[in-house]
């Protein structure tokens, strides 16, 4: 039963909360009402069974609780400045009713550029992702009080500055959508370097966005990218040790998820998607094939590099070029980059130098990468390489 409740919570929280915010016009009030409804469910469902339409039940219960509270304390309506004071009538429990889906309005509000990125991330995980404040604090390694404060400030700003609860109009949509996708990708990346829970949360968010915006190629591209990367999760670690792509046991890859990722990628390409997430997904898809089509991978990195102007992308292109034209050609690209504080520049240089049998400079580069790395799994990989060099 606990598992069923937890599943309902994860599945329904975002949708119920979004509908409540749309209805009540206030984040805190909506969150309290949703929490009450979920608490009532935790009490009743084990006894009476889970209702057929759990979402509609939760929403109706939360709305009725909110209305009760408004009735009890009329002054509250004035204090919270409800945008649209609800009619104080009990709602029927209609178990077949579809509840309004306002999750898109919610995600665009949470990822508004007037909020700091870290606040966007926390708010998106809290509201749409259904994570608790302590869970988010743990995932980002900050004290719980700091995370709670971050959420309170963000909600206060939404209210005081009047951040609208809506899907942005067409002329604002490209920029705003980019911000939403950046938040989801950031959550995924935080999960990718070990914290598995966050990757699953990002995937859930990505799936919801892909369902809500089926015709946006970059939304599909991001989902494809995350599915393809995540499919290799089980093979990326051996015990505590990081295993590089070339050395991974392919039988540990999730073939179904790779196939799903490729289907989503095909959809993005059919929508004429040529944006950065679509290209990254295409690269990831090529990496999952054997033998790997390195010339094509190098060409896609070239495309991505033109699109983003990012030296990190150039670094990845250098690795692909090294596979096609040899380590010398890769090294020539690496040595043009201004990324001295980036550990992967040094670990990439080190690997290329090692392949060219230039042991001294390779050792120096591994040491430089080690000095910049904080991740225990990555450090252990670098140390192994350094030992192998003798």
């Amino acid at each position, binding site marked *: 039963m606990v598992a069923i409740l937890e599943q309902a919570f994860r599945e329904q929280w975002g949708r119920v909360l979004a509908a409540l915010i749309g209805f009540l016009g206030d984040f805190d009030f909506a969150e309290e009402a949703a929490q009450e409804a979920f608490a009532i469910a935790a009490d009743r469902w084990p006894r009476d069974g889970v209702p057929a339409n759990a979402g509609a039940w939760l929403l109706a219960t939360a709305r009725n609780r909110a209305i009760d509270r408004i009735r009890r304390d009329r002054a509250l309506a004035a204090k919270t400045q409800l945008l649209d004071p609800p009619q104080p009538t009990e709602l029927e429990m209609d178990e077949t009713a579809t509840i309004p889906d306002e999750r898109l309005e919610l995600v665009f509000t949470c990822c508004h550029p*007037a*909020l700091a990125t870290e606040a966007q991330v926390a708010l998106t995980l809290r509201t749409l992702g259904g994570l608790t404040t302590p869970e988010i604090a743990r995932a980002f390694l900050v004290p719980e009080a700091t995370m709670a404060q971050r959420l309170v400030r963000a909600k*206060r700003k939404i209210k*005081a*500055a*009047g951040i*609208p609860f809506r899907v942005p109009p067409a002329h*604002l949509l490209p920029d705003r959508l980019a911000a939403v996708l950046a938040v989801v990708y950031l959550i995924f990346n935080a999960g990718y370097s070990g914290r598995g829970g966050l990757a699953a949360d990002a995937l859930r968010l990505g799936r919801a966005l892909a369902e809500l915006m089926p015709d946006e190629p970059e939304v599909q591209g991001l989902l494809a990218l995350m599915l393809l990367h995540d499919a290799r999760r089980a093979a990326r670690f051996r015990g505590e040790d990081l295993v590089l792509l070339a050395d991974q046991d392919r039988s540990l890859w999730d073939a179904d998820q790779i196939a799903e990722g490729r289907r989503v990628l095909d959809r993005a390409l059919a929508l004429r998607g040529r944006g950065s997430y679509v290209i990254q997904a295409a690269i990831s898809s090529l990496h999952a094939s054997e033998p790997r089509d390195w010339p094509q991978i190098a060409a896609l990195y070239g495309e991505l590099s033109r699109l983003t102007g990012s030296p990190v992308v150039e670094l990845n292109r250098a690795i692909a070029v090294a596979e096609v034209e040899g380590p010398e050609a890769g090294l020539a690209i690496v040595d043009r980059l201004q990324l001295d504080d980036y550990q992967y520049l040094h670990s990439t240089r080190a690997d290329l130098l090692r392949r060219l049998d230039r042991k001294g400079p390779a050792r120096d580069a591994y040491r430089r990468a080690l000095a910049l790395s904080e991740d225990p799994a990555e450090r252990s990989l670098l140390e192994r390489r350094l030992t192998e060099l003798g």
Partner: protein
Amino acid sequence: MTSGLQLEPAETATTVRVQDGRTLSTDGPFVEMKEALAGYLVFEADDLDAAIELAGRIPAARLGGAVEVRPITEW
């Protein structure tokens, strides 16, 4: 006294700049404000997006400066 308004705290501020015709908004106050507050305008806007759009039309936002959008405390 001819004019006076109380602003909401700095953490509710949004800074607006226009670069290459694109309106960029970022979280927080315009840090250089202390040294170079050139003036203020009072607008009524339906929501923050409408306020940002108005701010983007102010010449200072287009000429390398920035416009800080801050809600006024309503009593």
